[in-house]
């Protein structure tokens, strides 16, 4: 441990701690900076994180210094402030100050630091700047404005050090230096939008988000990416029930500060035109919208009848939903006729970074709950025979295996509880619209076995039901179980199911999620 003084406070930090991090912690806010990034190498080029260390003749950049015993550091002295102001002025002299048309406005390092340290009278006229290329498309997701760039090299370091793909570099020198794409390349990798996140100014912007929304109008909700089993921690940026972008949220145990481009586009499915918004009933071979009361009575009548059935869900549902699903259908049908989903559904190629081969967010929960997956052929076999009722909750098995289309067509009745009018929905007799991940609270268990929570960001569209309440209502209507009536109650039920502390999924749930010890778990009913 090093004992030192920062801004008059006696503090202790482990040896090797960067002075930048130590100062930021003591101050309660980071030192001014553009180039420093905790997950990238030190560049030391923006020169903004200057601090005064007593005994040193010159100011020192905190990012390239480690804490030492007896250091006396000032981050806010007049000397430091004056120097930061001068450097900031240097950063701004060739900057176009086109904030009114810049997507970064509102979350821009230049703006923030000008308000904190600059506040000098600008005497720079627009005509005097060094001009560079603007709005250059450099890849499928990213657009480059060379004039706004402060040459912090975060993007080039990210592509050198994290993806290793090295698409961008700095060309030319002096104030003609600019970011550019390597000859014959484009910025086209599955992590390209991280460069937009780490760009401290509006030089790199997202083509998807460009000109869509002023960032200060957005509200952020912490969430988990539903795109694969990695479970990257994200935030959902939304306004008026519309999602505009997904951004990574730091969790060093899972995704660090990064996420992949595929994951970032997951929100588009929430607002997809094929979203199911009202219940549909097949009448005269056409799916017709019906009122909710009618849908409820159809549903309870079908499920309440004495009929042999099969239930199939998917690894896209939440842990809570899967617990209720198993409870409900294990009761209505025989336990051995309740399935987790189609085996192999959502399995694709992984990469060597964040994207998992399992493109479903919650397969681990299926395993934990003993909800086995079934091969399409086995399912067909199970469904052959008279008077079959099939309940499909989530997923899209028909798209996964088109043979199932005819199998399902031969069944008496197919009930689909889903979100989109997909191939599976088209085989259904009754469709109940349910909510997507961004419209509800829930738990996903990632491939590490880490339970992570996500929250409702936007409202459910139309007549869409909140899944767990629908399942709880069915439990109350059709079974003898005492259904949960609130989310905390539901979480306690799940905790009990997993054999972990009752509060561990409510008040004790850490923001980074946790990997539970399931050794105390007593396997409960319905397992095969």
């Amino acid at each position, binding site marked *: 441990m090093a004992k030192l003084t920062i801004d008059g406070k006696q503090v202790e930090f482990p040896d090797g701690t960067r002075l930048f991090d130590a100062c930021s912690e003591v101050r309660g806010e980071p030192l001014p900076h553009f180039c420093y990034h905790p997950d990238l190498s030190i560049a030391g080029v923006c020169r903004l994180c200057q601090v005064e260390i007593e005994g040193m003749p010159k100011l020192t950049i905190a990012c390239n210094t480690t804490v030492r015993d007896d250091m006396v550091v000032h981050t806010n002295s007049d000397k430091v402030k004056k120097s930061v102001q001068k*450097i900031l002025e*240097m950063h701004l*002299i060739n900057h176009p100050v086109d904030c009114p048309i810049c997507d970064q406005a509102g979350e821009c390092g230049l703006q923030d630091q000008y308000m904190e340290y600059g506040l000098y009278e600008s005497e*720079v006229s627009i005509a005097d700047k060094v*001009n560079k290329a603007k709005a250059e498309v450099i890849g499928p997701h990213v657009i480059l404005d060379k004039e706004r760039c402060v*040459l912090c090299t975060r993007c080039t370091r990210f592509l050198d050090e994290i993806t290793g793909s090295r698409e961008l570099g700095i060309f030319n*020198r002096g*104030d003609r230096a600019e970011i550019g794409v390597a000859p014959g390349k484009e910025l086209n990798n599955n992590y390209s939008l991280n460069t937009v996140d780490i760009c401290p100014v509006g030089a790199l912007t997202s083509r998807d988000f460009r000109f869509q929304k002023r960032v200060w109008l957005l509200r952020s909700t912490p969430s988990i990416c539903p795109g694969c089993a990695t479970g990257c921690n994200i935030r959902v940026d939304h306004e008026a029930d519309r999602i505009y972008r997904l951004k990574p949220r730091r969790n060093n145990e899972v995704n660090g500060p990064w996420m992949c481009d595929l994951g970032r586009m997951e929100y588009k499915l929430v607002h997809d035109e094929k979203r199911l918004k009202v219940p549909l009933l097949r009448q005269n071979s056409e799916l017709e919208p019906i009122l909710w009361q009618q849908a409820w009575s159809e549903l309870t009548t079908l499920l309440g009848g004495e009929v042999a059935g099969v239930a199939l869900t998917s690894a896209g549902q939440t842990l809570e939903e899967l617990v209720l699903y198993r409870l409900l259908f294990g009761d209505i049908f025989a336990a051995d006729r309740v399935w987790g989903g189609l085996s192999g559904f959502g399995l694709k190629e992984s990469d060597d970074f964040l994207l998992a081969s399992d493109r479903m967010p919650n397969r681990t929960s299926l395993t934990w709950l003993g909800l086995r997956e079934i091969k399409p052929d086995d399912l067909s076999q199970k469904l052959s025979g008279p008077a079959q009722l099939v309940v499909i909750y989530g997923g899209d098995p028909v798209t996964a295996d088109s043979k199932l289309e005819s199998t399902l067509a031969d069944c008496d009745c197919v009930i689909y509880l889903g979100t989109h009018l997909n191939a599976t929905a088209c085989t259904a007799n009754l469709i109940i619209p349910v909510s997507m991940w961004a419209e509800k609270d829930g738990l996903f268990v990632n491939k590490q076995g880490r339970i992570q929570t996500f929250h409702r960001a936007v409202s459910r569209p139309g007549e869409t039901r909140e899944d767990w309440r629908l399942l709880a209502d069915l439990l109350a209507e059709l079974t003898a179980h005492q259904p949960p009536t609130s989310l905390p109650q539901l979480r306690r039920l799940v905790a009990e199911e997993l054999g972990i502390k009752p509060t561990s999924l409510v008040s004790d749930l850490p923001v980074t999620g946790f990997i539970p010890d399931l050794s105390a778990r007593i396997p409960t009913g319905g397992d095969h």
Partner: protein
Amino acid sequence: MNQNVDHILSTRFGRKDGHLLSVYESEEGYQALRKALTQMSPLQVTEAVKEAGLRGRGGAGFPAGVKWGFVPQDADQVYFFVNADESEPGTFKDRYCLDYDPHMTIEGAIISCYAVNANLCFIYIRGEFGWLVDRVQRAVDEAYAAGYLGHNILGSGFDLEMIVHKGAGAYICGEETGLINSVEGRKGQPSIKPPFPAVSGFLGKPTIVNNVETVASVPYIIREGVDAYRQYGTEKSAGTKLWSVSGPVKKPGVYEVPLGIPFRDFFYEYLGGMVEGEELKAVIVGGSSVPVLTASEAMGVNLDYEALAQAGTMLGSGGMIIVPQSADMVELIQVLMHFYFDESCGQCTPCREGTGWLYKIVKRLRKGQGVQEDLDLLDQVCDGMSGLTICPLAYAAVMPMKSFLEKFRPEFGALIKETTPVGPRSRWPMGEQEI
């Protein structure tokens, strides 16, 4: 003992055959190498160079032996670079060394490599010195053929490979980490320190970078001994120094003189004073990056590290620029400011933006578009660049700018016209993109 006692480095300067191995060998060439490899340990070589007080001749004046001592003792691989990226305006001494006497530098480099236990040596030659690359390469080939390079040199068991590397023509590649980066195939720009190259340099291994003149001084120290070297110069500035002198003096050129001689003597006895009709106005002593001295200041200083520092300037590289009364100091600083604006690598913001800003303000002044406040603005911009960057290039621009402004302010002031319109205007001069 060498007959020409004042000439350690320049005995073969100006001769047509000095670059040949046969000539070099006939004049005690490679004797020092033989002595080092057969009679001295690497540590003894380092100690000798340390005791001789040899200081880096590239500009910083850091003691060479001390720098060598920074290489970790347990290093498994060490690299050595001879820095011949001589690009400082006014400096052309290393060019003479390599052109007229390449073997002396090569011998010095081999001894230096032996001292720091390096088995691979690069001679990094400035891109504009194309012909020099061929000359040095031929000398290296000769040295290989004679067994001074390669495997088991002179039967000592010491191996050394030497590569002549041509730079691509960037001033900043003379900065040692910029030089290393460019040889590694990266953009030629300095790296942040620490770590210093002596600990982690080329390919992450300990690396020593020494200037040509520094390396060329080593054979004499080893061959003739520390005392022989120390008979020249002063206590703290030992040995001789090459001065490359340009400007309207009677005899410009490269001179080797002991450190510590008065500038006045050097000026009159060696340079022959100014050409007819010119008077001395100012002297840039150590290359374009050091603060300028007025004629009267210059006449009072001795040419050694300490005396020049005391006079508020630096010995630097020894690139001496003599400025006559007829010269326009603002024009001269514009040329220099253009140089630093052009050569800034663009990495650190204060240098990238500041060098361009200074250049544009000076240009505006010379166009008669300046105002009185511009003179203060020049000072302010300099303050915003000083000591805030990875390498000293920003400071190299600031030092001449500030000293010119301080010592020749009336010449700047004279460019400001009474009629210059007063009103809203930009601190940042009009957008002139041409370089």
